[in-house]
């Protein structure tokens, strides 16, 4: 089970709220302005607590008035990883209700795919709206069966191009990890490679199906029964109305109150906002590491993960 687009959306909405409510110290404003994409990438990657906390801990000591670019990327990354956790902790309890066997009619993998499809429709308006990053493009063809090139009726899908570039990307990403060049034991190297290439591999055709051809019973079960996204939730309405992050305003406290009556997405957003503001307070030495850990619902399991 995996969400991608919903993690991006929660990250984007959380950052909007952080700017508008003026919760960001200068170094974070810089980081999230210049390296917004770093946070976005982190929000779509795993094991975030392993680095979000050490990053904040490392740079909160002796804070200079500005950081170099790479440190800014890491600070933005820490925000992204914390929003990922917010999204996960809101969605996972629902996903756990479903069978983990992919061949079951209702299963947790497909449920997460339907979550992403709904976010694509609601937040990204079926690709009419992209992300706010110029380095992450979401388009009307993001969920097409192979990416069609050219808007002519007889245009062929660019499947071969997609294949080459996809394999090329994953080879590149694998190379971004130091073990590729440092691991000297072939067996361990291959095991680590397996983690990169093999584990959790998702079939993107499921995502295409969920957008192009959503099943009525599945929409009911995955999205409606569990109240995944409700555009009328106050926090969602508010965040959708934020057009720019230049202005700041005091938002009513009630807006941030978590409640079971809210949709999963609204709760994800509220958690992500709570975790990131806690991260910032920890960075500012306003709360201890333990307090920060409590707020982000850290468990022993997180350390092992």
């Amino acid at each position, binding site marked *: 089970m995996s969400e991608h687009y919903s993690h991006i959306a929660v990250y984007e909405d959380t950052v909007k709220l952080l700017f508008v409510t003026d919760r960001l110290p200068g170094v974070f404003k810089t980081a999230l302005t210049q390296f917004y994409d770093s946070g976005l990438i982190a929000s779509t990657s795993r094991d975030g607590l392993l680095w979000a906390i050490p990053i904040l801990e490392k740079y909160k000591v002796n804070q200079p008035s500005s950081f170099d670019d790479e440190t800014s990327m890491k600070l933005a990354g820490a925000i992204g990883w914390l929003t990922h956790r917010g999204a996960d902790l809101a969605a996972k309890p629902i996903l756990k209700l479903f069978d983990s066997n992919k061949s079951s009619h209702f299963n947790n993998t497909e449920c997460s795919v339907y979550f992403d499809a709904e976010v694509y429709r609601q937040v990204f308006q079926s690709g009419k709206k992209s992300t706010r990053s110029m380095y992450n493009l979401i388009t009307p063809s*993001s969920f097409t069966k192979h990416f069609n090139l050219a808007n002519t009726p007889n245009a062929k899908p660019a499947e071969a191009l997609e294949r080459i570039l996809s394999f090329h990307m*994953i080879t590149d990403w694998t190379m971004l990890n130091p073990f590729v060049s440092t691991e000297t034991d072939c067996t361990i190297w291959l095991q680590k490679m397996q983690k990169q290439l093999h584990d959790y591999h998702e079939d993107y055709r499921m995502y295409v199906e969920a957008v192009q051809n959503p099943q009525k019973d599945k929409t009911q079960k995955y999205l409606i029964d569990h109240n995944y996204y409700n555009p009328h939730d106050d926090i969602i309405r508010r965040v959708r109305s934020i057009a720019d992050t230049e202005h700041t305003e005091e938002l009513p406290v009630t807006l941030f109150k978590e409640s079971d009556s809210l949709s999963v997405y609204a709760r994800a957003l509220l958690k992500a906002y709570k975790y990131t503001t806690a991260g910032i307070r920890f960075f500012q030495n306003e709360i201890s590491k333990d307090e920060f850990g409590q707020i982000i619902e850290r468990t022993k399991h997180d350390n092992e993960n």
Partner: protein
Amino acid sequence: MKTEMNNPIDELSRRTFIKLSAIAGAGLMLGPSLTFGEDASEDRTYFVNGMIPACLLLQTAELARKATFVSQEMKKALDFSIYLTNEANFAFAGLLPHEWKALTKSSFADMPKEKQAFKAGMIVSNTANEHFSEIYSNCERSKIPELRLYHDACLLKHVSDIDIKQVTKEELVTFLRTLVSPMITRTHTLRPDRDDGMNWIVRMTKWNRDYYAYAENLADIMTKPDPIKVDNYIKKLNFIDLSDKSIRYAIEGVDFGEMHQVDGNRSLYGKALYESLKRIYDGFK
């Protein structure tokens, strides 16, 4: 808040080929794979290593699929998929700059499927190296990034199933950039190295920005190549000849029954393709 940079693409175009990080350098010094043009290592980012090995691997697999004399075992080792978890996907790990001597020496017959695929990838990578390193070594250092781009553009155009005349540069850029999110989705979520997430985010950010700039450059050359450069980088170097039999069989939907049917190629790419197939085939004998 599209404010990551005021004009990032222009800014990035100038630095598309900067050295990505110390890790890249360290990684690339290790093995022969993907490292044509050794002397240009400082100018290299990952993807700028080029599409040659990946295209060769994909087309070698195409040939293996169509070759009626190739064993099922070998076909399986090359039956990779972007849709499914698949042992054959390890073939792409074989393109990474790391050569395992033990694997090079051991026989395909004694290996599990992942290692067979991995070794097949290594063979393709080594074959690519043998065939193309000379033209990269002979190229003026500052021109290597452009040489790579012309080779990539040329390969992607010819091995793909699109009619490039129907496509505008903008459509192609959008296509290339849109691919990133689905690809991340396919990996479930990205998984940083457990020891190094902090630096990983830095490298991934740079990769992504460089890829966005690369997409622009690539689309530009695919749709509007400079004829003088095509002459210098493709024709004069005998890079690819679409009448080569190995390439024709890889592209066309026809089976073939004997190895010699794809032999006798004139271009470097055509020869490398034949050699990749033959060496893997010999290994499986």
